[in-house]
């Protein structure tokens, strides 16, 4: 787009002609035409004025009019002349032409503006694109360089790799070579060794011959006397039988060893089979039962049922004794199957757990929380109820404590009456018992008094008898029998009396009295010169003393004796 300068008229005319020719010659786009045409700068008013005055002066008016007419006609406007002939101007057509020219000018200006705007836009786009292009070019350069670098590295590494491979091959070849060398040397050495050994053997043979030939005069072995064999047996000749026996023994030894080992192995096998059976049972118990989840475990259920049949079969057979291939295989196969099932089960559980952890967790949380809340509400309700109950009970208690007088009195009266009646009953019982006791006491005291009287009588008798005895003893010799007979007599007397005293007494009382009876003889053997009262005291004392070691079955007697003493 070239710049259009303001030029003088003659030049302009020629230029405009050129332009017209240019426009007529080159069929360019209307826009470019417009732009070209647009680039005709709008001269300033001054310039316009000078321009106009420059174009049309008074001298060349007709020339300029004709020129303008020609221009207009070429442009397609009607001629400004009135008619073809004459030089009179058609004012209307001139004004029309002018108007049209103005309109055209306006249009052209607008178009120019638009074109300029577009031009600017395009310019900026172009700049932008140029920038992008520059950047991309840079990037392209960089990547190209990188590629080149990487390719270099790759080449280097490949060459290194090749070198290493080569080295490895070389080393392997060397190793192979060395091994070959070693083996060849080894064979050579073996051969040499064998040769030398043969020589050596020859020498040894020679030496042996020499040694054997040389007969030593002295005996090779001298022993003072023969020593018996360790096991005491005699030496045996070497015969075929002994050889056979040797073989036999050797085989026996081997066989016993093999038998022992076989026994051990059998034991081991049995134990291992037991362990496997146990494991099978454990695995079966670990696996989930079929009934609960039939959907999931339908397959497993079928397998399980099959297995259970197998298990039943196997258990029927006597495992310990059979050790044939089929049984062993069955056992191992069944265990393997179950182990696989257990593995699957565990995997499923793991999946469930992981699923539960990842996706379904929230719902579960919510559910659990709801449950938790429900439970807490329930518990709170319960607590409330309990509290209310406690309150009511407290109120009741309070009422009880602080209720109306009448009711309290009544209540108290009731309680009191009850208690009174109870107490009265007890008192009655107590009094009855007291009476009984007093009766018994009286009877016992009477019995004791009687006892005392009888004792006194007995003592008097005894005293008299002793005196008699003493007198008689001085005259006659001592008769020990006499000592016993009176005691026996006394004893029987006592027995009778005591039986009379205690009518319906128990046996132990009798026994006690019997033990009591034993004391009197000792008492009797006490110093003879004793007065009756003293003896009676001794007796009472002894009786008391004898009562003490006896059982406490006789508190009454105790009481009785005390009473008796008190009364005395």
């Amino acid at each position, binding site marked *: 787009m070239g710049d259009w300068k303001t030029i003088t008229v003659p030049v302009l005319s020629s230029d405009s002609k050129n332009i017209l020719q240019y426009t007529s010659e080159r069929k360019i786009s209307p826009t470019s035409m417009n732009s070209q045409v647009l680039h005709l700068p709008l001269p300033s008013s001054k310039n316009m004025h000078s321009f106009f005055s420059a174009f049309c002066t008074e001298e060349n008016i007709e020339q300029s009019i004709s020129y303008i007419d020609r221009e207009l006609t070429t442009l397609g406007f009607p001629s400004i002349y009135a008619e073809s002939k004459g030089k009179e101007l058609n004012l209307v057509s001139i004004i029309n032409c002018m108007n049209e020219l103005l309109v055209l000018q306006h249009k052209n200006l607008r178009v120019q503006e638009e074109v300029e705007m577009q031009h600017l836009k395009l310019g900026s786009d172009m700049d932008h694109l140029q920038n992008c292009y520059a950047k991309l070019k840079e990037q392209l350069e960089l990547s190209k360089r990188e590629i080149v670098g990487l390719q270099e590295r790759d080449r280097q590494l490949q060459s290194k790799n090749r070198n290493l491979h080569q080295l490895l091959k070389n080393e392997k070849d060397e190793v192979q070579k060395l091994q070959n060398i070693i083996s060849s040397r080894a064979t050579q050495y*073996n051969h040499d*060794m064998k040769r030398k050994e043969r020589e050596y053997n020859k020498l*040894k043979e020679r030496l042996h011959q020499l040694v054997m030939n040389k007969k*030593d005069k002295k005996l090779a072995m001298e*022993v003072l006397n023969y020593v*018996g064999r360790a096991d005491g047996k005699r*030496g045996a000749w070497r015969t075929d039988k002994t050889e056979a026996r040797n073989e036999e023994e*050797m085989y026996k*030894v081997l066989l016993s*060893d093999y038998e022992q080992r076989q026994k051990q192995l059998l034991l081991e096998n049995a134990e291992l089979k037991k362990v496997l059976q146990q494991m099978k049972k454990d695995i079966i118990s670990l696996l989930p039962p079929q009934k609960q989840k039939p959907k999931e475990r339908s397959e497993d259920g079928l397998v399980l049922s099959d297995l259970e049949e197998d298990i039943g079969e196997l258990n029927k057979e006597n495992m310990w004794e059979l050790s044939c291939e089929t049984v062993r295989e069955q056992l191992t196969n069944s265990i393997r199957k179950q182990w696989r099932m257990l593995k699957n089960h565990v995997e499923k559980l793991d999946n469930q757990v992981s699923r539960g952890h990842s996706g379904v967790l929230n719902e579960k949380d919510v559910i659990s929380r709801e449950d938790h809340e429900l439970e807490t509400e329930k518990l709170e309700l319960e607590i409330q109820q309990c509290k209310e109950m406690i309150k009511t009970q407290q109120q009741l208690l309070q009422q009880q404590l602080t209720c109306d007088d009448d009711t309290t009195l009544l209540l108290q009266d009731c309680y009191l009456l009850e208690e009174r009646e109870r107490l009265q009953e007890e008192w009655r019982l107590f009094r009855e018992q007291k009476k009984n006791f007093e009766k018994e006491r009286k009877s016992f005291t009477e019995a004791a008094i009687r006892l005392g009287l009888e004792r006194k009588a007995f003592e008097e008798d005894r005293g008299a008898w002793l005196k008699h005895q003493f007198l008689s003893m001085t005259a006659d010799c001592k008769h020990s029998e006499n000592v016993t007979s009176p005691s026996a007599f006394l004893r029987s007397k006592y027995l009778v009396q005591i039986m009379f005293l205690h009518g319906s007494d128990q046996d132990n009382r009798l026994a006690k009295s019997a033990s009591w009876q034993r004391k009197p003889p000792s008492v009797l053997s006490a110093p003879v010169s004793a007065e009756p009262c003293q003896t009676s005291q001794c007796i009472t004392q002894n009786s008391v003393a004898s009562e003490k070691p006896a059982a406490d079955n006789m508190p009454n007697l105790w009481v009785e004796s005390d009473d008796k003493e008190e009364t005395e």
Partner: protein
Amino acid sequence: ASCLQHRLVVRDASSLQILQLYTCLDQIQYIEWSSDSLFVLCAMYKRGIVQVWSLEQPDWHCKIDEGSAGLVASCWSPDGRHILNTTEFHLRITVWSLCTKSVSYIKYPKACQQGVAFTKDGRYVAVAERRDCKDFISIFVCNNWQLLRHFDTDTQDLFGIEWAPNGCVLAAWDTCLEYKVLLYSLDGRLLSSYRAYEWPLGIKSIAWSPSSQFLAVGSFDEKVRILNHVTWKKITEFDHPATIASKKTIVYKEVEKSPTVETERLSFPPTRALASSLFSTQSKYEISQVPVSLQYVKPVADRANPKVGVGMLAFSADNCFLATKNDNIPNAVWIWDIRKLKLSVVLEQLCTIQCFQWDPSQPRLAVCTGSSRVYLWSPAGCVVVQVPGEGDFQIVSLSWHSTGDSIVLLSKENFCVCYLEREEV
């Protein structure tokens, strides 16, 4: 019994009282008791004479003269009435009978480390032979020395044979140039052969477990391979690395502790006991924290029979432990638990281990390292026992009593007996 120059001294085992004193013709090189402990044989290799003495009758004497055949080795037969003499250059083995004064010859015996092996019950003897550059094994019945079986072995150069304690399997192994273990049954059939690898140096030592269940094979690659008696295949291998990293092994390290001397008790002139205690260093065991790195000795590469690999193997009597020594790590004894097939204890000593032996009755191990201390290990713990006495008593080897109550400690010139108290239960 001990020998001194040309005298044989017999002492009582519990009191070390001299019971008998015998004089032989020459310097004694080797003595051995007969199996019933009634006779002692004294072998004098230089003169080629074996003299036998009786304990019951001190006047009884017996002299076996090999003459110009020479004598290289001599041993009793298990019945205690025959003596097997190996002549020089392993020309033959002569079996002398004390009962009948008869002689038998075994030809072409093999000149190897363990060429003659008796079964534990003393019924059979296996002799390694070599004829025409091929190895053979002959099995004889010890009763009447009759040949039972004679078969060839698939070895390059048979190095040793050993019976299993149950007397039914014979293990034969090849030289260290070839790793090969062959297992033969009593009747000469080849049960199995085991080969771990081909080219490097092979087997260094072999030991049977007391129950005949396991055969431990120690090799020059510092590993022990255990074969089981059912399939005769390797069930495990034990490695002996220089660093122990497993947390389950206990490492006992012998540590010297400086002797504490109380200055108040010093007297002048110093008593002998005090002087010896001052100069002899005490040591005790300490438990080292895992990981532990042991002293590793790299052997000289161009010498034969290098000090590499597992050189000593011993099973405990109750079949629970295996003690091994890796010659690369000469100061350590490795104790493996056979029930768990794992390394359980490592004993690290200050000096090179000379010899170790298990107690025949309990799982107790006695170790000696050439110092004047004997080291005892049992699953309950380990203890260092100082040999009391003046001067240095450098223990070179030791031997347990069959009841497990005492140990004989041998040094170059002296020996002493260590008595172990039994705990009152």
